Structure formats: C-alpha cells, structure tokens
C-alpha cells in the first residue's frame, strides 16, 4: 500500500500551481484515475471503462482514518501517509496531520512543523504551498496567490512584468496593497520631499530592511528565535538607530502570529518603560484567543518612526483598541 500511495500522490496533478488553486476552490472534487482496461473496478460507476472515480474529500478522510488504525508494525505505510500529507497539508487539515503524527510516534516533526504552519495567516500558508509546487512562472504564481487569498487588489501582470522580474517584489507589493503587512506608499511630506507612509495607521514607516523577504513571507518566524540566537531584531534596531537616530519611537513593537508583543524585547533594546500601547493591550491575556488581529496583522512587523511621536503612538493605540474591541471575546477588556 505504501508504494501505491506514494505513486498516486506523485501524479503531477498534485504538484501544479493551477491545480492547487482548483482543488482548493472546488466544493466537491472527483478524481478520475486511469487504469489498465483489464483490471476490475470496485467502484459503482461502471460506464467509465478504464477509469475510476474517487472523491478527493473521501480519499483524505480515508487516509486520516486509516492512519488512525495503524500500529507500530505499519511504519512503512505510516511513513508513506506522512509523505503524502506533506504535499497535501492544506487538504488534510491540522487535525488529520496531528493524528498521523501521533500514530507515527514522531510528534517532534509534525508538531513543530505544522502547528506553526496552521497558525500562519491564509496568505502565508498559500505562499508556502505555492512554493512546494513546481510551477516556475511568476505570473501564474501571482495569479493563484491572489485568487486563493481573494485579494481585492491584484497586479496588472502585463504591466508589472515589464517593470520587474522579481517574484518576491511582486508578492511583497501584493501583500502590502491588500493589508497583509503595513501599507507603504511614497507620499509628499512637503517642500519637495516624499517619504514612505503607512496609510492605514497614518505614520511614517520604516520596514525591517535586514529581514529577508522569505522571512517576511514565512511569518517572521526567526524573529521569535532572534532573542536568543541570531538577534535579527538587534540588527534591525541598530539599522534604524544608525540611519534614523532621532526618530525611532519607543512605541516600536512587533506582532507575531500568536499576538504576543515582545515587551521584553522592546524594553531591552529601547531602554524604555513599557510602551503605553502595550500596557493597554495586555496581549499576554489573548495568547490562545482568536481575534481580529490574528489574520490581518499576523506577520506585520513595523517600526514606527515618527516626526510626530505622540500622535503616532496614539494612532497605534487606537488601531489596537479598535481591533480588540471588534472581537466579542475581548470587548470591555481594553480600556479606551
């Protein structure tokens, strides 16, 4: 069975970008699988000689169910299921993956890999899934990412591909324009000068320039680790201080997917008291709570650099209060 499962999942249909979009979009997908005409079909549909019809949903459910029946002696089959699950994570869902990992006795692999995967916002997961596909055409990837995420603002591909061949830049522009990470726009600030501007929060924004695009698209995972190891925050802060020493706000903060603001990090690096906005938000209370900030701003990281410091902090505070207040679970917790 292990061999057959692997052979089936290696059909190119499972690895193409366009079919990724199609299988994620379809309500009920039936797979038509050709077989040698001489074989006996077990399926009910008899009027498709040489072909069997399998519901994709049933196949995934069946895989999950079978994985639950496996014992230690079935390691080869379990390994094959795990391999298939790697390519079909989006369809199997977190619960199924957890069951499989439990049965495999390899919690350390799946637990760490896929819990973080499922905490990511949709656009992060989609980006990662597209990375696993074998389509290398920039415009295809951008179209599929836009469609699956139902972005309201899409790239004019004919136009943009004449201007840049950078896939990452295109993705970044797409995310910025659809509010996945702070919206940057170069705007005039008077006297012939212009600057990057976060229109959503009405503050000047300095993006974390030393973070790689991959890290941003990946949900800023390494920021978490940075406090102990790579210290990328240090690099970013030092970068900010070096180039913009007077204007780095102590209201700088970060969001990550589980919404714990790094207060220790801010205190340490900015040598400041706990910023007012964090005092009010008390995000530690919401670590395991689904709420409004989770998807939209999961991967957002912005260092608010301000010419009007007080106004900027107030604006950030308002944004957070509004978003927390939007969630029924959190109403009344944050004082306005």
């Amino acid at each position, binding site marked *: 069975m292990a061999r057959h499962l692997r052979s089936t999942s290696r059909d190119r249909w499972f690895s193409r970008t366009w079919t990724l979009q199609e299988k994620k979009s379809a309500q009920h997908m039936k797979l038509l699988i050709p077989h040698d005409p001489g074989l006996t079909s077990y399926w009910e549909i008899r009027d498709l000689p040489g072909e069997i019809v399998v519901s994709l949903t049933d196949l995934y459910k069946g895989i999950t169910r079978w994985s639950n029946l496996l014992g230690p002696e079935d390691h080869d089959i379990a390994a094959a299921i795990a391999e298939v699950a790697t390519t079909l994570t989006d369809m199997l869902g977190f619960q199924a993956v957890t069951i499989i990992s439990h049965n495999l006795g390899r919690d350390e692999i799946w637990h760490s890999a896929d819990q973080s995967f499922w905490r990511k916002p949709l656009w992060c997961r989609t980006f990662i899934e597209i990375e696993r596909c074998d389509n290398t055409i920039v415009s295809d990837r951008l179209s599929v990412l836009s469609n699956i995420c139902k972005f309201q603002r*899409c790239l004019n591909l004919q136009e*943009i591909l004449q201007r840049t061949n950078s896939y990452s830049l295109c993705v970044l522009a797409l995310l910025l324009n659809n509010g996945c990470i702070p919206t940057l*726009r170069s705007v005039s600030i008077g006297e012939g000068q212009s600057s990057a501007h976060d229109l959503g929060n009405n503050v000047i924004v300095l993006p974390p*320039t030393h973070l790689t695009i991959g890290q941003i698209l990946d949900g800023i995972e390494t920021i978490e680790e940075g406090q102990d190891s790579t210290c990328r925050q240090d690099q970013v802060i030092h970068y900010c201080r070096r180039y913009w020493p007077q204007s780095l706000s102590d209201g700088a903060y970060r969001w990550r997917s589980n919404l714990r603001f790094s207060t220790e990090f801010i205190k340490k690096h900015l040598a400041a008291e706990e910023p007012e906005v964090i005092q009010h938000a008390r995000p530690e209370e919401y670590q395991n709570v689904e709420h409004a900030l989770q998807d939209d701003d999961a991967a957002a990281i912005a260092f608010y650099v301000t010419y009007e410091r007080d106004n900027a902090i107030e604006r950030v505070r308002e944004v957070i209060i509004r978003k927390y207040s939007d969630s029924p679970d959190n109403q009344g917790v944050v004082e306005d």
Partner: protein
Amino acid sequence: MLRDVDLALDDISFNLDAPPPDRGPIPGGLFTVLLKLGDIQRETFEIVEAQSQASRRLRLISSYTCNNPDSPTRLYISGPNDHPGERNYLAVSYCWESSRSLEDNKLPQQFLMVTTEETRKPRCPRSVLFRAVRYAQSKRIPYIWIDQECIEQDDPADKEYYIRCMHEIFSQSRHTIGLLTTLFTSQDWLADVYLLSQVNPQS
C-alpha cells in the same frame, strides 16, 4: 524564475542609476525600495471587484451527443453571455502537459469545436475532452468548462479577464473533476486506493 526570497528588502536590485533624493538620514537603498513599491502600487494595481462578474459570463461547451461514431463529435462552445449565472457545469482540472502524454491515437473519438465564429480543432489534449465528455454524459451534466477551450488563448485581455476569476469558476460549479494521468497497472494498486477512499472501512 528568480528565487530571491533570501534577499533582504534592502538587497532587491532596482534601477539604482538615479541617485536617491536628498533625504538626509534616510539611506538611499531603502528609500529606493519604498519608492519602487510606491510606483508599483500607483501604476500596476487594479481593483478587482468588477471581475467577480466574469465568472457569471462563461463560455460553456455543450451538445456532445454523437450519433455517427465515424464522424467527429461536434462540441458547441457558447458565447460568454449565453448562460448568465449558470452553475450546472463540469469544471475540468488537469495538467496541460502531462495530459498530452495520455494522448492516444487509439482513442476512438475525434472532436470538432464549434464556436459562434468558427469550427476548429480542439486546443486541449484529446484525452481531456474524451474523459470530460464521457463523465458529463454519465452524470447528465449539460455543460463543460475547460480553460483551454473556453478562454480565448490568443487574446491577452480575455485570458486576464478569466484568470482572475478561476477560483470562482471552480468554486461555483456543481461538478468538478481532476484528471490524473498516472496509470494504475495492477489490481493491488486499485484495491489499495479503493480501501483508502473508504471513509468507513468497517462497512
């Protein structure tokens, strides 16, 4: 494709020929990045709300009854306004290239595509049409949607128009099939997939 996800934002290569504006403490590289993103935003983005109408204006393939087995089956492709809002169609998902590997000269059926403007040969592999038509007939599905046939491949505007709503075309269709091309060659293989596809093995 340029795989540049390992580049820092500051490293993205833009046209740096023009010196950055005098922005005092703002580093030129960074400022150029921001300006570039600003340019992309201003000039190459489009609001796509209007596009949601595109999935209601599909060309659909129909009339695939063939009485004479020796003559090509004529499949009719409607105009985009002939079936507004129709959802009872079969959306076909397949890999363009690997489906060609299944192209078999022994396939009994030949096809001709009849549009409002011309009669032409199919653009998609014959095996795709054959499998889709046969499935639709067995399920009595009146219409089929296949991207290569129902989108004007030589018209960039038409392609852009429909590519943006591909997800809607598949999500709104009542029937969807994915055409695998891996040929099952043993009875064991067939039996294993059958077992796997049974949600309740005990029954």
